């Protein structure tokens, strides 16, 4: 049995007086795909933002690839370089071309030579099928293309883990598929993934485990088949009946 790549132990987090995460425990093994779902405000985005410390947790411990997240900035930057993240709003850099979006971090963070970084970027862009858009600016692309570029940008750092924070929620229905396809391909290539999404079709297709969160707690955590076939808690059943 392989060692866990992410270990989350008793993590608690408050925004002011409001507790967003309550005693979260989660282990993720390499190459495992986990889908996190739940109603809005349930803390699922906050949870994955804690994994690369875009949010700080106040209690408990998070260990990513053997390094514990702490105040140490050097540690955090090293972990962030290994953990890719894709956001709901794409968050591409609008002042840079698609290619420069992808090469910026490899060149300046990983000190990769420019030529090598560009080759890698083109490879990743071709993988998500927007290689022909490399010289354009983000504002000239459709939402689906932008999100695929964001995936390519994260992959250019050659991360060990990919986090997806509702990657398709801001997209038109017809663009969702192209983004999901890119994610499915990535999953098949063996990436460790944690995906916050409401796309249950995607969850059924790729996820090893599905986690259901509500009010800052993990209500249910089960293998994908079990999760959909016979959910245990009533809250999960209610959620599934509404979403499916």
């Amino acid at each position, binding site marked *: 049995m392989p060692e866990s790549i992410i270990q989350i132990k008793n993590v608690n987090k408050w925004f002011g007086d409001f507790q967003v995460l309550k005693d979260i425990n989660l282990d993720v093994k390499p190459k495992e795909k986990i889908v996190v779902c739940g109603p809005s405000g349930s803390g699922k985005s906050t949870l994955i933002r804690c994994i690369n410390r*875009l949010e700080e947790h106040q209690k408990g411990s998070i260990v990513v690839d053997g390094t514990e997240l702490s105040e140490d900035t050097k540690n955090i930057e090293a972990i*962030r370089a*290994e953990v890719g993240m894709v956001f709901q709003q794409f968050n591409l850099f609008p*002042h840079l071309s698609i290619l420069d979006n992808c090469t910026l971090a490899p060149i300046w963070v990983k000190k990769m030579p420019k030529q090598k970084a560009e080759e890698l970027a083109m490879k990743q862009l071709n993988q998500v099928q927007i290689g022909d858009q490399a010289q354009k600016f983000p504002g000239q692309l459709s939402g689906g293309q932008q999100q695929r570029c964001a995936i390519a940008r994260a992959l250019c750092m050659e991360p060990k883990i990919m986090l997806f924070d509702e990657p398709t929620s801001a997209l038109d229905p017809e663009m969702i598929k192209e983004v999901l396809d890119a994610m499915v391909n990535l999953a098949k290539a063996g990436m460790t993934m944690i995906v916050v999404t409401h796309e249950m079709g995607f969850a059924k297709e790729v996820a090893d485990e599905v986690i259901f969160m509500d009010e800052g707690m993990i209500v249910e955590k089960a293998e994908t088949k079990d999760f959909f076939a016979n959910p245990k808690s009533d809250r999960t059943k209610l959620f599934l009946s509404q979403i499916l």
Partner: protein
Amino acid sequence: MININFLNPSKNNLRLNLIIGLSLVFLSLFDVFLYSFFDINIVSFLPYFISFSLPLILGMFGLSIIRISYSGIKKLDSLNKNINTNNFNAALTLLIIFSIIKILPPVMSWMIFDANISGDTKDACTGSGACWTYIKIWFKRFMYGMYPNEHIWRVNLAFIFLVVLAFVGFITPQKYKKYLSLYYIIIYPIIAYILIYYLISGGSLGLEWVETGAWGGLSLTFIVSFFSLIFCFPLGMALALGRRTDLPIIKYVSVGFIEFWRGVPLITVLFMSSVMFPMFLPQDFFMDKLVRVIIAISLFEAAYVAEVIRGGLQALPRGQYDASKSLGMGYWKMHIFVILPQALKLVIPGIANTFLALVKDTPLIFVVGLLEIIGMLQMAKTNPKWLGFAMEGYVFSAIVFFIICYAMSKYSYNLELKYKTDR
């Protein structure tokens, strides 16, 4: 059978409507023109009130006749769409044109037709218009202040060098383009300083020393503005970032600095820099008045620049920070490559605003005895031999400042277009 409905112009009688309408408009303009330029009133036989408002009535009637939508004539359509949409707009347009026609003759005759430029003394100015002789005689002073005449070539040479070196960016080969910002931010100011120190100030290399008190006129405006702009920008940027950090000491120092300099008037700052500041310095420490003034203006304007830049930083969505952090970028990389380029682009108009204000604030350095172009003007207008020409002087300096500021504003607009990559 021609049947024209004047109240409801339509496409059917397009040609006739156009001819009548346009001739009415031209007639109204012609009437104003004759009255304004030659003092002839062709309709003086009419009662005063009617003859007074006749051009407006004719013009509005003419414009209303040609107000035909989708006429198929491009110029007419654009005219109707832009200035002739309804009677109110038509009246405004006409009144503005009338005002211009009315104002033009007196201005032209004062500035050109009745003006004098010949001769060397006040007596040469015999006409009723402007006396440009005054500007001509004092021109060197307005440009170079009290800088000795026989050394003026040094100022010219220094400025020629500076202008030429400023254009280096346009001729550098692609290969060296990436060093350009380094050149403009660090090397160019150093060269500028060296040029000004050795060439204009002198005192070594066989050049006679000219004290800064003698510098003046437009060249001093340029020197003060140039160095203040160069220093205040990076300082303002640092302050803006400082005000937004989580490090308490840096944050409160920045806030204190910004609020202090924004709270005091520039004229006070300049006065203090020259009168109070030396008292705090050690006895044998000497800092030139001009240097003190440039430092004072830079610190003062940096506070404004900082707030403008902070506005840009706040306008950026949080996602930009998240994305750069998630890629492993630290504070400086994130700001240099992602945040500042976008924030600065957003605040180009605000920065241009601040810089224009800075250039136009430079005349205030008269309080410490430095006389740039306006200062020289004040001096020249009180010269007993040349009393009574303040107007010419102010018009002249207004034109000079307008040219400088308009060029700057054009340049900032070009920058905006150049960096417009999104949307």
